[in-house]
């Protein structure tokens, strides 16, 4: 599976590896890995995970059922967000400031057995 390259502007960009698992890849062109290039600074503040999520919704998501990913402006319940393989709760959740090379994994909870 090849990864998409997405560019926004040029100067001082961050290269972020975004992954979807547990079925969420379905909402993103059935593609598990996406290499995302986003600016390091947005409105004079360091770029946060909150911005990345908005960006993914607007620019990467192909499925129209946005509510399967975002609910009331936040990642919907039942999706785990992992920043460099750690629960984002350990990293400040939405306010985490992205670093170049970060890996952000979105995993949908499974219920089957």
């Amino acid at each position, binding site marked *: 599976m090849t990864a998409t390259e997405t560019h926004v502007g040029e100067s001082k960009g961050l290269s972020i590896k975004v992954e979807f698992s*547990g079925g969420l890849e379905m909402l993103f062109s059935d593609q598990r890995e996406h290499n995302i290039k986003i600016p390091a600074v947005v409105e004079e503040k360091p770029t946060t995970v909150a911005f990345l999520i908005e960006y993914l919704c607007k620019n990467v998501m192909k499925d129209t059922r946005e509510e399967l990913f975002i*609910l009331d402006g936040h990642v919907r*319940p039942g999706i785990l967000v992992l920043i460099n393989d750690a629960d984002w709760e*350990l990293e400040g959740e939405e306010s985490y400031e992205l670093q170049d090379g970060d890996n952000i994994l979105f*995993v949908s*909870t499974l*219920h089957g*057995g």
Partner: protein
Amino acid sequence: DTPWKWPLSADEYERYARQLIIPQVGVPGQLRLKKASVLVVGAGGLGCPAAAYLAGAGVGTIGLADDDVVEVSNLHRQIAHSTDKVGMHKVDSAIQFLRSLNPTIAFRAHRGRITSETAGAIISDYDLVLDCTDHPTSRYLISDACVVHGKPLVFASALQTHGQLMVMNYPPLPQGDPHGGPCYRCIFPKPSPPETVTSCGEGGILGPVVGVMGVLQALEAIKILASGNLGREGFKREDLGPAQMLLFSGHVAAPFRSVRMAGRRKACFACGEASGLTRESLGSGSVDYIQFCGVVPAVEIL
């Protein structure tokens, strides 16, 4: 006639010979397994392999809870059942299989769905619980019951080619104690919207994917029980290193990934500092799990 003076019987030394020589088990670990009781909730794709390896390892008492009967569409993944048992209660079918594997241990059948009213009486009888069910309502209920009754929980789930596994509420310290392990609600404080919940029946499942997760549940249970850490004075969640969840994706080159999870959530509804959940409130049905998890609006079902 010299009286038998060894801690295990001759048959047990022979049957468990290959695990007795492993440093992580040994005779003390085997004796702990023998004294232990494990409840497996769900005798399906996770529960079948999990119970098989628990029985093989010599867990003294294995309880199985399920309200389903065997169907032919189960058999590609539910390897403790068989074609001539189609229509039989899954719990009875599985126990028949497990008993033929290891007739030296005890089995208990819980035929019927676990509810708020029955969960306490069932779970309080066991040392450890495996959540092998297939719906969020039962997953929240089982976790809550494990919290108020002080039982560690080995959670796993699977769908299509994906699986997830985590040891929860271990050690099972009282509510509000930050040294206890996180519970299911610490990880998933709000349930997934019902329209995003897909069962194996709807979404499909590859047999070995759910099989791997079930076998790994048995391994985690055996490790906990053989270690002797359960009930050891002063044993803390942190002694085990960071809490981990194991993620599996069967069609990826590096299929397994261990991710680091936070500990207990102070504000957790079940295990948190101000939790009002008690054995009594749980048993009286004060939490409506069906409403909490929601139902798909009728229009979506059409």
